């Protein structure tokens, strides 16, 4: 028996792979299929689904026309949900833009330091990755709170008389997301800039290019893969974020993540929540796949 097992490669493979395959298929792929199924059935009275299931595409239509729902009031805005999707994407774009704008020069700065400093600064970039996201968001919330450090600091300087409302608005959500995801942007851009041969800049300058032109024509194109990686790494998690908009927005700022969460909480509309989750997942996957396609093309071209 044991000998048979040792000789038989197929059986070995089966033994090694079946626990992982079973767990992932049962507790990841099957749940996703159930989301797909529920997104195509009608909701029941108690919040879950109607039994026996009645198939419908209403949950997807509702996303594009909020008034399609039977529960819609007379003053409903048909673009309510599309608006929230658009708003989330706008917030994600703004956050990504600032991440790259602040992160790129920082990556460049770090790459120009001496080895010891470079390592130390990179450790400082990496530490936030490993600290609890909730704790970091709380740290920022505490600084921006009405009774927080920033407000009392500004009041003591007599710059303001009344504490500013720094929390529970779009500004707070954007700053919170920027705070959470800035390290994600720095890492890939640093990897790209560190590999860049800086003597190329000197060559460009010797050939008469002013610094800005040398940057735009030489350095930026060559480090673009890092910038694009940063874009994907920030945009993808931010567009579906839940924790930051919930804590920093205090329930006043709606993003896709909080909207989905609400369908499983107070709104109790699981089919609609499911359809939105699938759309969100699709958006993210398209972005990631496009990124992998383009990055492999880049490497192919480089070779």
């Amino acid at each position: 028996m044991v000998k048979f097992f040792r000789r038989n490669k197929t059986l070995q493979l089966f033994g090694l792979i079946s626990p992982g395959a079973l767990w992932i298929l049962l507790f990841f792929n099957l749940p996703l299929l159930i989301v797909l199924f529920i997104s195509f059935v009608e909701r029941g009275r108690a919040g879950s689904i109607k039994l026996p299931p009645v198939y419908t595409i209403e949950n997807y239509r509702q996303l594009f026309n909020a008034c399609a729902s039977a529960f819609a009031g007379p003053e409903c805005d048909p673009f309510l949900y599309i608006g929230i999707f658009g708003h989330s994407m706008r917030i994600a774009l703004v956050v990504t833009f600032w991440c790259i704008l602040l992160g790129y020069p920082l990556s460049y700065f770090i790459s120009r330091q001496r080895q010891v400093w470079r390592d130390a600064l990179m450790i400082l970039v990496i530490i936030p990755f490993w600290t609890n996201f909730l704790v970091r968001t709380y740290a920022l919330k505490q600084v921006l709170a009405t009774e927080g450090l920033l407000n009392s600091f500004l009041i003591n300087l007599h710059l303001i008389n009344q504490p500013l409302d720094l929390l529970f608005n779009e500004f707070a959500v954007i700053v919170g997301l920027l705070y959470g995801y800035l390290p994600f942007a720095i890492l890939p851009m640093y990897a790209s800039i560190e590999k860049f041969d800086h003597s190329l800049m000197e060559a460009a300058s010797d050939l008469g290019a002013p610094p800005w032109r040398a940057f735009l024509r030489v350095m930026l194109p060559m480090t673009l893969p890092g910038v694009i990686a940063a874009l994907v790494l920030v945009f993808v998690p931010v567009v579906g974020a839940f924790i930051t908009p919930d804590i920093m927005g205090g329930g006043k700022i709606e993003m896709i993540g909080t909207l989905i969460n609400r369908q499983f909480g107070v709104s109790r509309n699981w089919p609609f929540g499911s359809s939105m989750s699938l759309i969100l997942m699709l958006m993210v996957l398209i972005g990631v796949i496009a990124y992998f396609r383009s990055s492999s093309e880049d490497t192919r071209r480089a070779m």
Partner: protein
Amino acid sequence: MSARSAAFPAYPRQQVRLRTRIGNWLLGTNAALVFGFIYLPVLILILFSFNNTRSVAVFTGFSTEWYTSLAQNEELLDAARNSLVVGVITTIVATLIGTLTALAMERYRFKLRTTFDANLYLPIVIPEIVMGIALLLFFNQALFPFLQNIFGIRATTGLPTITISHIAFDIPFVYVIVRARLADFDRALEEAAADLGADEWQTFKRVTLPLLMPGIIGGALMAFTLSLDDYLITAFTKGIREQTMPLYIYSLVRRGVTPEINALSTALLLGSIGLVGLSLTAQNGGPVYTKGMAVGAGLGLGLYGLFSLSTMLSSGEFTVGGLLLRLILVAAFIWVWRSYPAYREELTDTNRSGKVLAWITVFISAAAAILSAALFLM
């Protein structure tokens, strides 16, 4: 072309130097601002956890009262115990399964291999909230009705469903880390073992496994950290009564800002930085460090076992189960006592900074072990 480049003005040296000086100044300022932005809030959080009033804006004096109030908060201690139980079970199962999967994917060729590989990356890539609701719907709409109808078992969400879900999202992370280690693996070492007469199992046990160990331990600590930190998936798969640490913190943070949360956050920060430090040392360093972790953990458990055994004996009130548990902990101490000389022997070969790192590893593991033992036995 040559006419054009000749037409470029030659920049005066002075001007270029001034420009780079301003450029450097701007770069430095940006770096200071970004690091300030990332670290100041966390440093302020730590500072105000030691404040002696409830304010998180004015530091009035040093005190540790928030930490003492944490240690007496039963709700929090329960949450911490739950987090540890879920984390430990998740880590063991996910590490085992993830490692087996990595071995299978790296060493065998089969149909649908690339598809399954992509499928394993999927849980890392998709938004956490999607996986959370998928599991919520799976448990409530599929698994529980199925168990009810077929076996007549009434199941509800709780710590077991949280653990199952954590294992599901941890397997891919362990898989990625172990597989990266396997990719660098020199198969010639295994062939050498086979040439020297070792059979497949011996080769695996004596050559493959020890060389993979840093990756496996790195993956395990990563899995543990992720499980301890997870809020979103836990929130969708939790039961009515039990909560975990992140769930508890989340409920506090939503309510407002208090120095208790600062103290709790500081403790968590220390914990996760310690864990990740261990994880990185395990992945990049040699077996000296992984063994150091075992020695440290054994030492911590053993010391706590000795301490609690003595208090139990002196107080005179003991149960058979409690006594047995403490004796097991004391056995850990005896194991450390006996394996310590061998460990010291191994340390003599490492250089000075390696030695310091190894002792830090031992110390952190011991502290973690003592704290967890205290949490459960107090």
